[in-house]
Each structure stands twice: as structure tokens, then as C-alpha cells.
């Protein structure tokens, strides 16, 4: 078996939304290079429970990088050091025995902390509810092949649609802006004829909702693209702005 490592974790602990938080440092003596970062937190939690301490709460579910539940800032980078990887698929082989890892929740006014590393990302759902859809009732669709779509357009739409809604873009943005998340959905639907009839209403409503939720404005740092587990390009933000201008001018 691979050699165990001793890893120190400096973790943000906060009992509830309105309580004062603080960092606690814990030592995990039996970390293993094959384990994932979340499994390291599991091991820490088992240790804490046995010692009568409340475990560290963190969101997680599929643990294969697609559900978007997990997300913490690891040593200053959303989802940690491995590119295009959600922290559930970050593995401990990237660390050395004796390393200290700083773990913090997403920090943004629009993502209030619920407990420890868990934040409330429902603002994202409200942005989608404002217009991130095609208005089509079940049963009223025409045959799927009646609407040919050029392969490159469809592929580009898929690039944008790959967003997992984890919130890393907001967490990493120096302005806590939700532009990449919002733009990814707008761009996905803007690439497709299905999304066309509602495009003006969509971009306006979603952008207004984004502002309403208290996210910051974009300053084109492109930090969001660098931390996005799906590598969604900031060209989506450019597309969103073009869509917005078209809506403004009509």
C-alpha cells in the first residue's frame, strides 16, 4: 500500500449563518496519496466524531465532478490546484507528507454561509428561473430532426451547456461576479434556434436577476474560466454582452 502522509488542515468552522466563524487546524495522520480530497475530509470527520467534536460540514454528492455540489477554496484556489477538476476529483497524490492545506468556503454576499464549508447557492436557481429555459410544454414538440443545427454550433452549445453550477466562478472572481454562470446558459441557448424566440427577454431577465442577487460586476479578469471544472470559456460572457446589446437596441 502507498505510504501514509500526515496532512494538516486549516479549516473554516462556522456554526451557523449568523455566527462568527474561525479557522481550526486539524492534523490527519493517515492520509493516503490515493484518496480524493473529499475522502481526506471524510477521514478527518470520522476522527472528529470519535473525539466528540462536530464534523466539518461540506456539500458533496456524486463525487465524480458532474453534480456541482462540492466546492471549497483550497489554498486560495476554488476547487484546488488541479485544472479543470472539481475538488471531489482532486487527489492527495498532489500533496506531500507534512503539507498544510487551507480550506475555506465560497465567499460571496450572494452565497451566504449555512454552516462550515456549506453555502447557499440558490441565487443560481433564481437566475435560471428568470429565463434560462426554452418555453416548451411537454407534448408540443415537433420531430427532433425537423430542426437541423450545424455541428459546430451544436458543439459550441454543448461546450457552454456543460456548466455544473458549482459556483467556483463566483468564488474565484475578485468581484464575486456570476457572469460566467449566467453567460454559459445564455450562450448555450443563443447558439440554438430553439432558444432564439426568447433570446432578448432571456438575456435581460437573467442579467437583471444576477444584479438583484447581489453578485459583483465583471471586470474581465477571466479568473472564472481558469477555475471552471468544465473550462467554460469567457467567450460566453462576450456572447452574453452581444445578446444584451441586441436586446437593448430593439
Amino acid at each position, binding site marked *: 500500500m502507498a505510504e501514509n502522509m500526515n496532512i494538516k488542515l*486549516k479549516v*473554516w468552522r462556522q456554526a451557523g449563518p449568523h455566527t462568527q466563524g474561525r*479557522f481550526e487546524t486539524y492534523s490527519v495522520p493517515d492520509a493516503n496519496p490515493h484518496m480524493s480530497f473529499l475522502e481526506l475530509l471524510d477521514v478527518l470527520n470520522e476522527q472528529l466524531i470519535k473525539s466528540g467534536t462536530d464534523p466539518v460540514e461540506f456539500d458533496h454528492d456524486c463525487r465524480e465532478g458532474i453534480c456541482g455540489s462540492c466546492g471549497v*477554496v483550497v*489554498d*486560495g*484556489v*476554488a476547487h484546488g*490546484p488541479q*485544472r479543470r477538476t472539481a475538488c471531489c476529483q482532486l487527489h492527495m497524490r498532489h500533496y506531500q507528507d507534512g503539507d498544510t492545506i*487551507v480550506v*475555506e468556503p465560497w*465567499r*460571496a*454576499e*450572494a452565497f451566504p454561509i449555512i454552516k462550515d464549508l456549506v453555502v447557499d447557492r440558490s441565487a443560481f436557481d433564481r437566475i435560471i428561473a428568470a429565463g434560462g429555459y426554452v418555453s416548451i410544454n411537454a407534448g408540443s414538440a415537433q420531430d427532433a430532426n425537423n430542426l437541423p443545427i450545424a455541428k459546430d454550433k451544436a458543439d459550441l452549445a454543448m461546450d457552454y451547456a456543460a456548466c455544473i453550477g458549482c459556483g467556483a466562478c463566483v468564488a*474565484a472572481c*475578485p*468581484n*464575486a*461576479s456570476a*457572469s460566467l454562470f449566467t453567460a454559459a446558459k445564455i450562450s448555450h441557448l443563443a447558439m440554438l434556434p430553439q432558444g432564439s424566440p426568447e433570446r*432578448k*427577454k432571456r438575456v*435581460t*431577465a437573467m*442579467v*437583471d436577476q*444576477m*444584479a438583484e442577487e*447581489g*453578485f*459583483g*460586476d*465583471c*471586470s*474581465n*479578469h*477571466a*479568473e472564472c*474560466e*481558469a*477555475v471552471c471544472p468544465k473550462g467554460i*470559456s*469567457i*467567450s460566453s*460572457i*462576450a*456572447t*452574453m*454582452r*452581444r445578446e*444584451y*446589446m441586441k*436586446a*437593448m437596441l*430593439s
Partner: protein
Amino acid sequence: MSSKNPLRSPIGKKLVTGVTGLGLVVFVFIHMTGNLALFTGNEAYNQYTHFLTSLGGLLYVIEAGLVAFFLFHIVNGIQIWLGKRKARPVGYDTYKSAGSPSQQSASSRSMIITGLILAVFLVVHVISFKFGPGGPGNADPAYVTTIGGEEVRDLAKLVRENFASPFYTFGYTFVMLLLVVHLRHGIWSALQSLGAMRPSLTPLVYTIGAVVGVLIGAGFIALPLAIYFNLI
């Protein structure tokens, strides 16, 4: 179809900042090339400035436009900065950039600082040149010269006098370096804000932004240094 106040929305603010920013880039570029006239002699320079003042009403229109551009650009910049502080009231204990493709840099993170210094500089600059000796409301026979029999303001003299001072020269140079830093992120950012970007073009536009920024800065810095070191 558009929101109640589209120019106040997150995207509207960026559009305004981008449009005014690009407009100001064009302005500083023209300003910079105008400055270079001094390299060919005082007369050429004074002729150029006289041409500008002789535009009369049109000049007022241009000046009013410039003031508006500056104000919109500055106010939006400040609002975006305030908004960002509100959007993340509690910062990170540890924060670092994830690296490429992030474009985060000292330039991008200091836009508010370089911008505000440039704004203060702008005021000082306008007071010391436009409204300086021989300028509007500040008639001074010492700063009058004649070109082809016509009396014109001898701005060249004022420029040479000011840049004889080490404080003014190096202060000016420093601020122009900040302008380069501002433009390094600003030009690319404005283009992205206006939706002009494609992923394949990003590196190219970012480079062009940097080169144009450096050119403008170099053009501005060349004159005071040349005067200070008695090269012209």
C-alpha cells in the same frame, strides 16, 4: 424588451465603461501624437494647439464630450469597485490566481487605483496646461508668440518650463507608466465588454492591447524626458 435601466445593469455598466474607455484610448492616442509635434519645433507645436483653440464652438463640443466620457468612465469604475466590495464583504484568508487562462494581473487588479491616480492627474494636468499661464482666464503676455503675424498662445514655452522641473517630469513619467498599466488590462477588457471577443482571438487581442498601451505610454513619456535631458 430591455430592462428598466439597461445602462445601469451589470452589462450596461460594462458597455459604458468599455465604450468610454475605448473613446478615451482614441483621445489619448491623438493627444500623444499631437504632443510629438514639439519634437519638430516650438512653432509646429504652437500651430497645432492654435488649430485646436481656433475650432471655437466645435472645441467646446469636443471638450464637453470628453468630460462626459471621463465622468461616465470614472463613475462606473468607482461603482463597479464599490459593488465588488459589497459582493464580497468577507475576503479569503488565502487567495491566489489559478493561472492561465486567467488574465488576472497586477494591471487588472489595480484598475481602480491606477484609474483614480489618473483622474487626479487629469485635474492637475488640465489646471497646469489648459488653464495655466496664457490659457483661458489667465492671460499672460509672456506666453504669447506670433505665427505668420497672428498672436497665438506659446504653449510650447509652458511645456518646456514645466518639464524642466524634475518633480514634474518624473511625476508625469510615473503617471504615464500607470496609464500603461491601466491600458494593459483596459484595452482588452473594453473589447471583451463590448462582446468583440472570440476565444481564438483572446491572446491576440490581449497582446494588441498591451502593445497599444505601451506605444501610447512611450509616446507620452518621450517628450518630457527629452526636454528634461535637453535633447530637444
